[in-house]
């Protein structure tokens, strides 16, 4: 008796240890994964800028003495940057050296100066101290990715350039801060200017189309199959096919989208409308299956009570069953949406792999989505895109966490006890 009790006790302890080990292992992997991404991507949210005195002299800009406002945009702003940089290091002579000096500032600075003058024409003729983005290589240096110890021909910044950067830093002209460009800008060839906002808007538009299509159709189909249709061989056939569709690889839906929506219907390529259509086909089985489970979980006594009071079958469903099934339906829908947010393969097939710099302004304008943006940046050769890729992954994960949080909150809000 005693020996059996001890053996059982040991078995229980062992079992619990296995469970803890499994959980511990999963947590470890999760921490490693997230930790790596955070370590690689945190830098994307931080930027280094240089403070320069910019003289908005009309002669330098190549404009007349008193130019009209419409003319301002056509000034030579790159000369402004050159002059400002040369003022910092007047001893630098020779074209090659001057070009090397100029390259320390991002090409995007030119456009930012132009935007500033257009926004405030009174700046013309004034000298203002402005923060301008550094070139991606310079930023990598300050973030510690480029080291002077590496031989000169193995890095993209020469020793002289490093020297200039260090001098600027000693003079206190290098400032760092939160990288808002990453979150508000569109894609760019220049890593220091590249942002995820274009892809984020594309994702939002695509998901909006997906939601608008898959939610009503999915819930209506589930209600019909669960509440109104009788069990015939035809409905069994439909049910089997819905379950199968839920398991089809997503790229097949992309091929379908390419063949039907783009080739047959001639819809605009790379548009969130087509992306949303493809993803809603993919999400529909998930929504239907989740909704059916939620509807089936409503106790029959509620339906009987409603029928007994003289409610029609439609009233029973709409007034009683659907409100009770809503938490489950919403959870299933949001989980389906979260899966759609991370889908890349089907969207590649319909052309959302393009290099889009503008923020899309509608469901028919060309756009890309976050996972595709990550894929494109992962493919880019510039060293600075490495942290951008991880940063974008963090943003995507952030959206997913938000969506799952929304699922939990919505579910709690609509839960009613019966």
């Amino acid at each position: 008796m005693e020996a059996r009790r001890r053996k059982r006790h040991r078995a229980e302890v062992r079992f619990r240890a296995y469970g803890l080990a499994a959980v511990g292992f999963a947590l470890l992997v999760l921490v490693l994964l997230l930790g790596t991404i955070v370590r690689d991507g945190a830098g994307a949210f931080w930027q280094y800028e240089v403070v320069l005195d910019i003289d908005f002299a009309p002669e330098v800009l190549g404009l007349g003495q008193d130019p009209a406002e419409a003319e301002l945009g056509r000034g030579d702003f790159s000369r402004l940057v050159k002059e400002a940089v040369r003022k910092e290091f007047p001893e630098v002579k020779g074209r090659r050296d001057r070009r090397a000096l100029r390259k320390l500032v991002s090409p995007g600075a030119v456009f930012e100066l132009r935007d500033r003058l257009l926004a405030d024409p009174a700046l013309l003729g004034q000298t203002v101290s402005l923060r301008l983005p550094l070139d991606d290589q310079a930023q990598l240096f300050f973030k510690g990715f480029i080291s002077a110890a590496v031989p000169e021909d193995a890095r993209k910044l020469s020793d002289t350039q490093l020297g200039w950067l260090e001098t600027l830093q000693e003079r206190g002209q290098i400032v760092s801060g939160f990288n808002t460009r990453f979150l508000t800008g569109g894609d760019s060839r220049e890593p220091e200017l590249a942002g995820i906002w274009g892809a984020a808007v594309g994702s939002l538009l695509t998901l909006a189309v997906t939601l608008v299509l898959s939610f009503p159709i999915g819930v209506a189909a589930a209600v019909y199959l669960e509440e109104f249709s009788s069990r015939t061989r035809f409905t069994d056939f439909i049910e089997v096919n819905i379950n199968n569709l839920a398991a089809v690889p997503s790229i097949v839906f992309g091929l379908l989208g390419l063949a039907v929506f783009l080739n047959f219907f001639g819809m605009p390529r790379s548009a969130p409308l087509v992306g949303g259509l493809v993803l809603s086909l993919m999400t529909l089985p998930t929504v239907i299956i989740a909704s059916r489970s939620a509807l089936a979980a409503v106790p029959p006594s509620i339906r009987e009570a409603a029928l007994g009071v003289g409610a029609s079958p439609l009233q029973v469903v709409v007034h009683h069953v659907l409100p009770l099934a809503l938490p489950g339906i919403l959870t299933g829908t949001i989980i389906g949406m979260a899966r759609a947010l991370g889908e890349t393969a089907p969207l590649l097939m319909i052309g959302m792999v393009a290099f889009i710099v503008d923020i899309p302004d509608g469901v028919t304008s060309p756009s890309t989505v976050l996972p595709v943006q990550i894929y494109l940046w992962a493919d880019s050769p510039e060293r600075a895109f490495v942290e951008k890729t991880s940063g974008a992954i963090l943003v995507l994960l952030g959206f997913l966490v938000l969506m799952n949080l929304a699922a939990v909150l919505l579910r709690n809000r609509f839960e009613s006890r019966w």
Partner: protein
Amino acid sequence: MSGQGDSTVDNAQGGPDQQLPKVSARKLSVFYGDKQALFDVDLDIYANQVTALIGPSGCGKSTFLRCVNRMNDVIENCRTQGKVMLEGTDVEDPSIDPVQLRARVGMVFQRPNPFPKSIYDNVAYGPRIHGLAATKAELDEIVHVSLERAGLLDEVKDRMEEPGTGLSGGQQQRLCIARAIAVSPEVILMDEPCSALDPIATARIEELIDELRADYTIVIVTHSMQQAARVSQRTAFFHLGIVIEVDDTSRIFTNPQNQKTQDYITGRFG
């Protein structure tokens, strides 16, 4: 009033409104798939009376009850033959809308099943969907009267907005009764309404049934012969899908005509 067919013995003499039974079944048979649950049932239910249906488990009492308000329509594989008539009109007649029928014939179930809404909304739901109240004031009136009739108003008048599911078992069942009478039915069907309740709550509901029979026709299925004896004026004894005997309650319990009835009442089986 002798019944048709030799399987039913109906000896009732008394009862008001005897000329036209409120609900009557003629040769009613019900099949669940291949299994037959009721065999050629003939039964008359008279207005403003409580008729009790007694019998052992699985004898078809609830099936019969559900035929009267066509609740069996929602069960797949359920077929009926024969007729059930409400005031002379076949309930399966195409001119009768089952939804309207269920407003005239209400039902109270074995386990209390209030809607997961407020107490007020539970009672107001029926009148709302049938358009019985033109204004909020009228709806309030209907709800108050129904709750009062069901003997629940005093206990809930201060918490009408609280969920109906928060009440005790007996209160929930009274709420279900209030919900049923809010649509002003003519007949109330009760399927073992007290079987999930304690004796005190049961006594209250039996009192309520006695008060309600002045305005409604009540058919109650019960497992308890004592309850049938207390509450009903007429009793029908079902066995294996057949109505063995129908009679005034006092007579069926003191002087049953059929041997099976005698055996059931004395507890030899069931």
